[in-house]
C-alpha cells in the first residue's frame, strides 16, 4: 500500500518537515535534507539574504524540495501577509507557514492574528499552513479560512519537551478534517514517533536536529522515527491494557449466574 500525505495538491512521501534556523553552517542543510529524506523545508524570509549568494539559505537547498517560507518575526496578521507576499514575489513558491508571534517571552503563537492572515493568504492562492496553539475551535476556523493543514505545537518552541499538549492534539487529530502536523517542541526521535503513532499527519523539526552534536545523523534518526511511527499507526497497534487480564476475572460470577 502506498502511503502519501497530500497537501496543496502535492503528494509527499516523507512525513518529516524540517526547519532551517539555528544551524551552525548552511552547508549542513543539504546533508540534513538527504539524511532525513524530507521533501518540505521551511525557511524564515527574515534570514534570506537575496543580495549575497553565500549567505542565501535558498542556494543551499536541493532543487527537488518544496520551500515553505515562514513569517517568523511577524507580530500581527498584516506583517505576516506582507512577508508571505514578498516571499512569493521573490520566487519562493506559494507555500507559506504562518507564524504570528506577539509574545517574545514564550514565543507562543497568536491564533487570532494567524487566522486573519490564513484567510487573506488562502484567498490569494497560497498553500497556507498555520502554526498555532492546539485549540479546537481555532483549528476549525483555520479549516474554514482555507488552510491546507494545521500545525499545532507539541510544547513551546525550542524546548525539546515533546508532546506536552497531547490531550489537545488528540482532539484535533480526531476532529479536524485536514492534516495535523505537529510543529515545535519535538526534541527526540522517540517523541516524533509517538506523534506519528497518535495519528499525526506529519511533524516539523528544527531545534532538535540543528542543535544536535551531529545534526546529519540526528536528521536521519528523525526520518526513521517518523517513518516507523507512521507504519505503527497504519498497522493499528493493540490497545494498551490498563489492568492485566486476570485469571480470576472480577465478573466471572456473571457466568456462574447465567
Amino acid at each position, binding site marked *: 500500500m502506498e502511503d502519501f500525505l497530500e497537501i496543496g495538491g502535492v503528494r509527499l512521501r516523507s512525513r518529516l518537515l524540517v526547519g532551517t*534556523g*539555528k*544551524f*551552525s*553552517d*548552511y552547508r549542513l542543510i543539504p546533508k540534513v535534507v538527504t539524511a532525513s529524506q524530507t521533501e518540505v523545508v521551511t525557511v524564515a*524570509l*527574515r*534570514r*534570506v*539574504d537575496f*543580495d*549575497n549568494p553565500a*549567505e542565501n539559505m535558498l542556494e543551499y537547498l536541493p532543487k527537488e524540495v518544496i520551500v515553505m517560507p515562514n513569517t517568523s*518575526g511577524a*507580530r*500581527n496578521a498584516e*506583517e505576516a501577509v*506582507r*512577508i508571505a507576499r*514578498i516571499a512569493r514575489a521573490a520566487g519562493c513558491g506559494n507555500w507559506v507557514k504562518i507564524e504570528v*508571534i*506577539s*509574545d*517574545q*517571552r*514564550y*514565543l507562543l503563537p497568536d491564533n487570532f492574528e494567524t487566522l486573519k492572515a490564513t484567510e487573506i493568504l488562502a484567498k490569494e492562492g497560497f498553500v497556507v499552513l498555520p502554526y498555532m496553539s492546539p485549540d479546537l475551535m481555532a483549528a476549525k476556523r483555520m479549516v474554514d479560512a482555507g488552510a491546507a493543514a494545521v500545525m499545532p505545537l507539541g510544547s513551546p518552541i*525550542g*524546548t*525539546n519537551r515533546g508532546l506536552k499538549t497531547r490531550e489537545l492534539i488528540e482532539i484535533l487529530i480526531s476532529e479536524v478534517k485536514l492534516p495535523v502536523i505537529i510543529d515545535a517542541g519535538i526534541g527526540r526521535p522517540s517523541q516524533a514517533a509517538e506523534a506519528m503513532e497518535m495519528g499525526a499527519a506529519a511533524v516539523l523539526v528544527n*531545534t532538535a536536529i*540543528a*542543535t544536535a552534536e551531529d545534526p546529519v545523523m540526528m536528521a536521519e534518526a528523525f526520518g526513521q522515527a517518523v517513518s516507523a511511527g507512521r507504519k505503527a499507526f497504519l498497522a493499528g497497534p493493540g490497545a494498551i491494557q490498563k489492568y492485566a487480564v486476570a485469571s480470576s476475572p472480577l465478573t466471572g460470577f456473571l457466568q456462574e449466574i447465567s
Partner: protein
Amino acid sequence: MSFYHELSMYQREVARLQQLEITEARIRQAIDSGSYHPEDYWVLLSPEADDYLETMAWKARELTLQHFGKTVQLFTPLYLSNYCINRCIYCGYNAGHGITRRKLTFSEVEQEGRAIAATGLKHILILTGESPKHSPVDYIKRCVTILRPYFSSVSMEVYPLSVEDYRELIEAGIDGVTLFQEVYDEMVYGQLHLAGPKRDFRFRLEAPERVGKAGGRTIGIGALLGLHDWRVEAFLTGMHANYLQQNFPGAEVSVSLPRLCPEVGGFQPISPVSERQLVQILLALRIFLPRVGITISTRERQGFREHLIGLGVTKMSAGVSTAVGGHAVHSEDDPGQFQISDRRSVAEIYRVISELGYKPIFKDWHDVG
C-alpha cells in the same frame, strides 16, 4: 505603571535582598529554575554564586542553544555626528572636551552606508551625540531614508525622544532603538551627568517604554558597567528588560553589557568589573531571561569575546569604528567616543565565529514597510 515607579520599588527590594542568606542549595535552585524570578536573579549575581560559574555556564549555554541555536547576529555602529551639548564625565563626546567635532553630510552618510554594506552586513546601528542644532530628528530621519535601501534593519542609538518622534522615525524605517540608561541610581546619575538635557533621569529611563508605545520592533537597553555597584546595576537592568518584555510582548528586547572603557577625558571606573564578573552577569541574565538578546561590544578584547559566544551572547558588533566617518570618510584625527579593543574586520570576525561552530548571521529581518 512606568518603570520609573517600578524602579524605586526594586531599589527597596535590593535592600531586602542584600540581607538574604545565600546557601548552596539556594544557588542550585536558582540555576535550575530561575527564569523570570527576580530573587533568583539576585542570587545568581551574588558573590556566593561566583563558586558556581561553571554550573551556571552549562545552564546558560543550554538555554542559549535552545532559543537561538548556533547563531550570532552581526551588526556595526555608524557614527553620524559627535556634536554634543551634554557633559557626561565618562564620555569622549563630553561638550567640554576639545575634540574635533564632525557631522556627516548626507552624501557622506551614503558613502559610509555603501562601505559598510560592501562588507556583507545587513544590520546597522546609527548613533549621534545630543545636539538639537547638529543632529535634530529631521537630520536623523533623512539619514535613515538614505541608509534604508542598503540594509534590512536600521536601528538607532541617539538621545531620548518623545513617542511622536519615535513613531515618525519608525515610519521612516527605524527598526529598533537602543538607549543605555548608563546608571540606574538616580543620585549617582546626577553626579555623573553635569550639564545638558541628559540630566533628566526620568525622561531617559522612560524612553525605552516610549519606543514600545510607538511600536518599535526591537528595544535595547544597558547600564555602563563600572559607574556604580555592578551587582545592583545588573539587577536593575534585568528588571528593566523584564518590565519591557512584559509590557511590550511583541518587541524583541536586548541587553548590552558595556564595560566602561578609557576615553579621551581619562575617566576611571568607580566600581570596576572584572572579566570574571562580566561573565557572571552574562550567565545570570541568560538564566533570568532566556529569550533576551545579549550584545557584547568591541570594547572587549578579542579572545574574550569569542569565549562569550557559547555562553549567552547573541549579537556582536564587527568591523567597528567609533569615529564619525570612520568607515569610508577620512578622519584619522578623531579619537572616537571610546577606545575599542577588538578592531577586526567583518570578514575576520566572520571567520572566527564560523571556526567556533557558530553561524554568523548578517540578515535577521526583512524590511516589510
